[in-house]
């Protein structure tokens, strides 16, 4: 029977995504599609991959792909729900930190691709009346992501980079800042004050309101300068 294009394509994709016996030709597509997906997830989640090992990762990736089919022609967008998937994945229950490590890795993945953003205009700020500083609103740079976890996800991430032995104590809560500086993604652990400050900036609060959370002038000035110089803060939005 001759099928029109649309039903033919639906049948073919169902065959590619199926797991029953099939013709050798279809098997080539099945293998290719699966390898592409595992490759895309492995590129976005190298630390998760190392933490669970190759065969576990391949199985989890295959199940993820079935649970959350790709909906974009750009494979870089595939894998955005991996953290939620792993949080509910029964086989990963022995690794309570795994889902948060995945959140951190997706933050890195997004940060790498975020808009370049505009650095803080220090000359412009110097020309302003200091009395108006309290009314300023900064934007966070587009590459900024903040991830809080009950686990030491930054320590785990660092310990599982190539050449490291993977040893890390994981049961310490951490708040991690991910952002891009000079073209490369960086991350570091934030203290509670910095976390609140960046959260207030993200909510669009004025510098004056951010300062009030603090009280400690010297610490506030130091933190503000550091985040401005590091490129965590971006354009002044007034």
């Amino acid at each position, binding site marked *: 029977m001759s099928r029109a*294009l*649309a039903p033919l394509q639906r049948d073919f994709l169902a065959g590619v995504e199926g797991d029953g016996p099939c013709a050798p030709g279809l098997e080539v597509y099945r293998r290719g599609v699966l390898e592409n997906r595992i490759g895309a997830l492995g590129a976005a989640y190298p630390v998760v991959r190392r933490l669970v090992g190759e065969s576990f990762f391949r199985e989890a990736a295959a199940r993820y792909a079935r649970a959350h089919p790709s*909906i974009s022609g750009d494979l870089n967008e595939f894998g955005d729900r991996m953290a939620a998937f792993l949080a509910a994945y029964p086989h990963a229950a022995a690794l309570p930190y795994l889902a948060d490590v995945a959140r951190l890795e997706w933050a890195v993945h997004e940060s790498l691709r975020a808009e370049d953003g505009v650095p803080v205009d220090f000359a412009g700020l110097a020309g302003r009346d200091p009395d108006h500083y309290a009314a300023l609103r900064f934007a966070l740079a587009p590459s900024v992501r903040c991830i809080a976890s009950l686990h030491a996800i930054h320590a785990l991430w660092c310990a599982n980079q190539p050449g490291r032995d993977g040893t890390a104590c994981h049961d310490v809560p951490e708040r991690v800042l991910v952002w891009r500086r000079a073209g490369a993604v960086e991350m570091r652990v934030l203290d509670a004050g910095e976390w609140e400050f960046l959260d207030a900036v993200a909510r669009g609060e004025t510098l004056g309101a951010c300062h009030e959370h603090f009280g400690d002038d010297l610490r506030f000035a130091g933190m503000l300068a550091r985040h401005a110089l590091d490129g965590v803060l971006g354009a002044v939005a007034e």
Partner: protein
Amino acid sequence: MVGIGLRAPHYAPLAHSRPPLGFLEVHSENYFAAGGPALAWLERFRRDYELSLHGVGLSLGSSDPLDERHLAKLAALVERTQPMLVSEHLCWSSIGGRHANDLLPLPFTEEAIGHVVARVQRVQERLARAILVENVSSYHAFAESTLPEERFVAEVVRRAGCRLLLDVNNVYVNARNHGFDPSAYLEALDPASVGEIHLGGHTQCDGMLVDTHGAPVCEAVWSLYEEALRRFGRQPTLVEWDTDIPALDVLLGEAERARAMQMVPAHQAMEATA
């Protein structure tokens, strides 16, 4: 003119050695990001080299509506990088909103020709330029097909007013997998329709040739390239190597071989008359 596929492991060595190359080709989707280091590298290389954008995810042949969000990102990248060539694959990847993210085969029918032609025209309109479409390797033949592959490809290109990115390796792979004469395939194509040639490696798997882009170009494909040069002239030629990526020098060696073949006087004469 010969180029190589630009892959991330080669960014640093290529920027360091800046070898003479006709162009660099990238997978368009790898530079769809709003910003960041990959795009910065691309813009840096664009200052030294001509560029070819080669899409792998537009799903030209799909029965789903054309993905305008994807097309808008491609248009933005074209605007940003002003490439010499823009190409897509003559295939489909998605149906019902689900993506296989792979190059799936079309049935060679009048219906499919009409469908793809309309979509190629929409893409050309959106990008305000002609594109090339590439013949893909395939591992499945649909009983619905009423035309041989080369007729299907030639008709799409003729009716859409686009050009053909002739992948010589894919012709060879399909000829072996589906049992046709690759030379007859080339002869069925309009000599003026080809605007770029791809060379790549394949691997053998369960009695079938699979287009993996993970191996050197084989001798039989080099011979077919020789035939293609005779028929289509000295078209921009790309050596693709996308998996198990070798050292840059290995890839440049393959490109050099293609360049030397283009230098044979008969092919230059062909270009002059094309």
